[in-house]
């Protein structure tokens, strides 16, 4: 069965942009250069520069309001839906300026999972199929295969395979969040952004999500914003620490938590503030 990405590869316009990256070590997937972001007159991000490495998990930590979610939302241009906002600087996806691409195309390549699970008022199946249909996939067998594959990757298949026609609202909170992950995975994004995906979940549901993120890092680059420092330490290959709209430090996760170079980082990860 052709996967969605192969399906898309038949359309030359999309394939030309989508097939750039090989699975090589330390290839840069996303790169920010001197990025500033404004809500009206308020500057929320100050000169952020960093590189997100392909097929690794990158975590952003920092106190509330430090700009980590704002930065995450610039990476799929979600902030554009908020009125009166402005971005300066460069944001490159596979070396191409993300802000010059078609926005729906950017969002297909860079998927997102939100803090609060937001299943659509549709069946479980239709939730997962939504992204495919939006992106023009009509073939029933292709959609069915993609739905099953995505639900398996999101570790939800066994729990829902007998009730795909039930409304998504009937699932538990943790299941809903995994459904949202499956929905995002269905369009086979190259990057998956997660904005505090576990903050509303209990420890067991959180553990399931962390396990599945480990499983899917082979197929997609993951960027996760979290308030939970243990989660960052457990999950991430790289960690960035944000404070007051600035990226204070960005390094190997172990370095950030065991031997940070900045005083602010040390204060935060040792729990002295925030």
């Amino acid at each position, binding site marked *: 069965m052709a996967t969605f990405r192969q399906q898309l590869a038949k359309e030359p316009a999309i394939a030309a942009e989508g097939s750039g990256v090989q699975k090589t070590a330390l290839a840069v997937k996303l790169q920010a250069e001197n990025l500033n972001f404004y809500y009206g007159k308020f500057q929320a991000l100050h000169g952020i520069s960093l590189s997100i490495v392909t097929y690794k998990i990158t975590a952003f930590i920092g106190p509330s309001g430090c700009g980590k979610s704002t930065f995450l939302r610039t990476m799929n241009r979600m902030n554009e839906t908020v009125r009166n906002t402005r971005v300066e600087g460069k944001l490159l996806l596979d070396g191409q300026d993300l802000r010059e691409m078609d926005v729906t195309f950017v969002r297909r390549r860079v998927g997102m999972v*939100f803090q609060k699970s937001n299943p659509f008022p549709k069946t479980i199946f239709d939730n997962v199929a939504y992204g495919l249909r939006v992106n023009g996939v009509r073939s029933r067998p292709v959609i069915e295969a993609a739905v099953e594959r995505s639900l398996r990757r999101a570790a939800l298949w066994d729990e829902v395979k007998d009730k795909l026609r039930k409304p998504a609202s009937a699932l538990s909170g943790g299941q809903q969040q995994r459904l949202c992950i499956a929905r995002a995975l269905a369009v086979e994004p190259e990057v998956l952004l997660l904005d505090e995906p576990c903050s509303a979940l209990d420890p067991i549901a959180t553990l399931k999500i962390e396990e599945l993120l480990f499983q899917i890092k082979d197929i997609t680059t993951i960027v996760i914003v979290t308030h939970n420092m243990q989660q960052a330490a457990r999950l991430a290959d790289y960690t960035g620490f944000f404070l007051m709209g600035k990226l204070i430090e960005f390094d190997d996760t172990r370095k950030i938590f065991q031997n940070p170079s900045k005083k602010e980082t040390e204060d935060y990860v040792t729990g002295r503030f925030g």
Partner: protein
Amino acid sequence: MDLGVSRRRKIVNVVMLSLSGVCTALVMGVLFFILGYLFWHGAKSLNWNFLTQVPKPSGQTGGGVANAIAGSAKVLLLATCIGVPIGFLAGVYLAEYSGKTFAFTIRYVVDLLNGVPSIVIGIVAYALVVRPMGHYSALAGGVALGIMMIPIAVRTTEEFLRSVPNSMREGAMALGATRARTIFTVVAPAAISGLISGMMLNLARVAGETAPLLFTALGNMFWSRGWLQPIATLPVTIYNYAIAPEEDLHQQAWAAGFVLLFLVLGINVTARMIIARGSASARR
């Protein structure tokens, strides 16, 4: 002294409570009083023939309002086809696209339109449809009632679309959906029970309108053919019968009033059941 104050407060409390209780009972009573009164006066005419026959020629007793019931349904269908799409799409614009200042202006104008007396809307429909066509018609009545439905359709659409959490929109757009697609495949379906019931309440509201139909749909003693002929409707039939000299027709007017009220209540109750079911499934 303390005792006096507390006693005064207790008395005031009892008086206010009983006053509001009496007024509540009055409010509830009015509906049942109207229903009962209509039934009392119209009972003699209320029978199967009344619902299935057309009016008898003047001078004869008996006959029914079947043509008026069908006519009201026809005119209301036309009104829905005109008022709901226009109101819905304008409501979508208002809720999803317009900026703050412009939204304020739209809302203001829509509220003004809602306040336009129904007879004036009737005149507008007369000028727009009846004059150019040269005769009264079901279409003209539908246009008049359709215009009357627009303001409420706009505001209900806005209200129910706004009640859909923004996280739904973001979820759809994050998958690459365009704004329009997000609205029509995620936001509107999320609000569907509210939208449908809002439109039904809107329909029930104009179902009893008489003034705009007087010189648009006019009325008809017989079955109306097609959409471009004068057509009987329940409110206008009630009006005509009520001012007619015959006692039999007065009774029929009461009975027709009962039928109309019953239909409107039916629509209302159905709409509220849809709302209740919708919010129950949303909470789940």
